[in-house]
């Protein structure tokens, strides 16, 4: 039943995004502009560009996740659909998992497109371990989705709304961004030294965020 509910929520969120394209139409231009601006600011120095590219890529993913989670909950706030989820007799943790899954898929697409821009614009090499790089992307996006989907609810219920989301997300998600950046940096430079530790950190944070989200989402949703 938990998986069925999570699947229903995820399918609904993805369908709404495919129809409205609100996240893609706002987040992608933002990420592309940011990368372009940094590219011009850093100049033609190839070494500098490839050195800063992983951090810029994950910074773009971070801002994208904040915007995306905000928009996801905006559609719940319209017509008070959020109350519909509250009053449905389902495990509220399953609702959280569904929302995190939908955010994960959307962010993965956004990261894929952004990575394409970074590879072309900054000349970032994929490196000899593309599978480990893909794992890093999955784990990094997993952490951003897990935390964003939880805190997006807090933000939509707070009086300060959108302003509250970055304030809540940014400090908490820093370890994920640092670990994902260091892993991406190492892998794109062809080094796997110390990668295991950073990937372990990503796994630990993903697991912790998901577990906390599953447990507390229902409490946050209640009056």
């Amino acid at each position, binding site marked *: 039943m938990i998986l069925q509910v999570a699947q229903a929520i995820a399918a609904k969120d993805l369908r709404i995004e495919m*129809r409205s394209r609100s996240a893609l139409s706002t987040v992608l231009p933002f990420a592309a502009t940011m990368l372009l601006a940094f590219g011009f600011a850093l100049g033609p120095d190839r070494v500098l560009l490839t050195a800063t590219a992983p951090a810029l890529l994950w910074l773009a993913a971070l801002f994208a996740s904040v915007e995306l989670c905000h928009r996801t909950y905006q*559609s719940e706030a319209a017509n008070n659909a959020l109350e519909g989820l509250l*009053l449905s007799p389902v495990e509220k943790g399953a609702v959280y998992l569904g929302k995190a899954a939908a955010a994960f898929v959307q962010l993965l697409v956004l990261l894929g497109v952004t990575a394409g821009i970074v590879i072309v614009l900054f000349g970032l090499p994929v490196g000899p371990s593309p599978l480990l790089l893909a794992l890093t992307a999955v784990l990094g996006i997993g952490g951003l989705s897990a935390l964003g989907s939880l805190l997006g609810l807090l933000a939509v219920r707070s009086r300060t709304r959108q302003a509250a989301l970055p304030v809540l997300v940014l400090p908490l998600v820093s370890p994920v961004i640092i670990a994902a950046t260091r892993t991406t940096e190492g892998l794109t430079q062809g080094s796997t030294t110390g990668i295991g530790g950073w990937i372990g950190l990503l796994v630990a944070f993903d697991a912790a965020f998901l577990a906390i989200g599953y447990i507390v989402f229902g409490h946050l949703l209640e009056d």
Partner: protein
Amino acid sequence: MIGHLATRRAPVTTTQPAAVHLSRVTRLFDGLAAVDLVSLEIASGETVWLRGWNGSGKTTLLRLMATAISPTFGGGGVLGFDLHKQRSAIRARMDLLSHETRLYNDLTATENLHFAARLYGVDGRLVETVLARVGLDEVATVRAGSFSQGMRQRLALARCLMRAPALILLDEPYAGLDVDARVVVDELLAAARSAGQTVVLASHEAPPPQFVDRELLMDSGRLAQAPS
């Protein structure tokens, strides 16, 4: 005092437990009592019209029964389940309809109902039937965001019909509705009556008298007169 409390018909007598039993329920918002020491019993199968001016506490009382909000003080039960401890069981058996339709603007009428069916474990094949019943079958594939308020209300009514809950809570169901949609509300009341569903209808507008067993008047968060 807004007016007098009138009893149109003797309350439904039943051996079943009360559908709603509230004991000295109070709900405070920023220190102000929106609902103040309300004690109330509604029999199973009864249709109650909760009347009162705007701000009298009708909506808050409905939302307390629906478990959308918690009482600050007091307690009670809905459909035999504790208001504080068995919220999920209550939610599975009741529906709250208000001007906030809880629909997704970017989903079509059919998709909105299919989503609700999945959450409530209802057979998705009922979707077409209920859409036809509320007169929205011809716009089934149109997004709810392009519907008028009346059409949205009808879609929300269709969701309620699909679930057939034991307790239906209606908050200003006639507000913003055209004549056709008002007929749908009346049909819902008639169907609920014949199916033995309990209905609490909060409205400052009178519903057709044949559907009402009892009237309760709210004033300043209190029941202005004890229910008969």
